[in-house]
């Protein structure tokens, strides 16, 4: 069972359905590993159920029920294929599993596979791999980084993380993740703003990036 969980406020935002779709995806992946959080989400949903039941009744238009039945009749006459249950939330991108990913090298022993990028390139959902024993460069973030460990594990200045763990790093936390020695570490990562390299070489790279990609530097809206 995983040891690092989403905070209570993220859990509540997820249960209420007001988390962004990408954050929701990260929480949902964590839930696949974590029965404790699944039980908590169930209770948080029960709270939502109660809040909804306590709302006043609003008047409905006369014909609404008939309109609904009409739609149902239409559907019943042409039944759709039953929805198949998802075994893995990332199946859409990884039909052949984690071993068949075509990784793009980013740094020594650090690889990325991009799943989704927002239009301006600001938000980014990706898989990140650090080969066994490898280290990512020291970096901070312009925004928030959400990571869920899918395979293996990593450590940084703030802790050790294993399969299923849900980790959030905010902009001001500089860290240098390192994969555990015996296994490649693969994570689902969601960045709501680009990373910012730190350290002597990193600062030089950042200086060039600011020159050529000034758009990435504004604080997240």
């Amino acid at each position, binding site marked *: *069972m995983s*040891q690092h*969980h989403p905070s*209570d*406020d993220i859990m*509540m*935002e*997820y249960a*209420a*359905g*007001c988390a*962004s*779709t*990408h954050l*929701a*995806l990260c929480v*949902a992946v964590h839930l696949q590993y974590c*029965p*404790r959080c*699944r*039980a*908590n*989400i*169930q*209770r*948080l*949903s*029960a*709270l*939502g*159920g*109660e*809040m*909804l*039941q*306590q*709302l*006043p*009744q*609003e*008047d*409905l*238009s006369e014909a*609404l*029920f008939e*309109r*609904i*039945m009409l*739609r*149902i009749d239409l*559907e019943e006459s042409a039944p759709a294929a039953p*929805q198949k249950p*998802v075994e893995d*939330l990332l199946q*859409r991108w990884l039909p052949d599993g984690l071993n068949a990913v075509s990784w793009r090298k980013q740094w020594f022993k650090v690889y990325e596979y991009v799943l*989704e990028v*927002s239009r301006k390139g600001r*938000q980014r*959902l990706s898989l990140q791999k650090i080969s066994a024993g490898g280290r990512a460069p020291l970096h901070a973030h312009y925004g928030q980084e959400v990571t869920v460990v899918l395979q293996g594990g990593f450590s940084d200045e703030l802790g*050790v993380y294993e399969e299923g763990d849900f980790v959030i790093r905010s902009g001001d936390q500089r860290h240098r993740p390192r994969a555990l020695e015996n296994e490649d570490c693969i994570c689902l990562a969601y960045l709501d703003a680009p990373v910012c390299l730190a350290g002597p070489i990193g600062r030089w790279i950042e200086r060039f990036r600011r020159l050529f990609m000034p758009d990435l530097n504004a604080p997240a809206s």
Partner: protein
Amino acid sequence: MQVSNNVIVLPINRKMDPNQQDPDAGEDSASSRDVLAPLIEAVAAQRDRDAFRQLFQAFAPKVKAYAIKQGMLEHAEELVQEVMVNVWRRAAQFDREKAAASTWLFAIARNARIDLLRKLGRSSQETQVETDYLWSLPGSDEPTGAFQQAVIVRNIRQSLGDLPQEQRDVIAKVYLEDKSHQRVAEELSLPLGTVKSRVRLALQKLKVILQEREKAV
């Protein structure tokens, strides 16, 4: 044989039936809530249109109120329609051993709302993954029993009434007005930390977050 059978079977049956367990069944909204589960089950088993109409009468007016709270006034009845069609479609997935009817119906309404907002292009961040995958309906785990589900809901219902207004307000904004804690803080001109601690206090009183946290040694 028969007698001893009855003695054993009866209390278990009663235990499994949340309808007979509710101490505050006198409260009108509570008693109307207890009929929800059998109605959903009748829709699932017999495609019972009378049961569906009763479900509609009990639940649809609240879904409309939910839509209005969410700021979807002009799409309120569209949401009601989506929710009720989904209740019909997915009634067979309801299992009172795994979730209370009000919990399951909330999840249907929540997902339909997210879906409709995505369809209307109002979501800020998009992903290709379907809403029902991102927010699965309650009940994928082992059944905990209808009795326990009823107890969870009853505890929440009773303690909600005792919450200080300021804690209740924050919860209502998150659940009913689609506002993150950050936005609630901005709206109430409060520090984010204050909003979060109100929520934490409320969740403790409601016994919503299980306390035991497995810590790494």
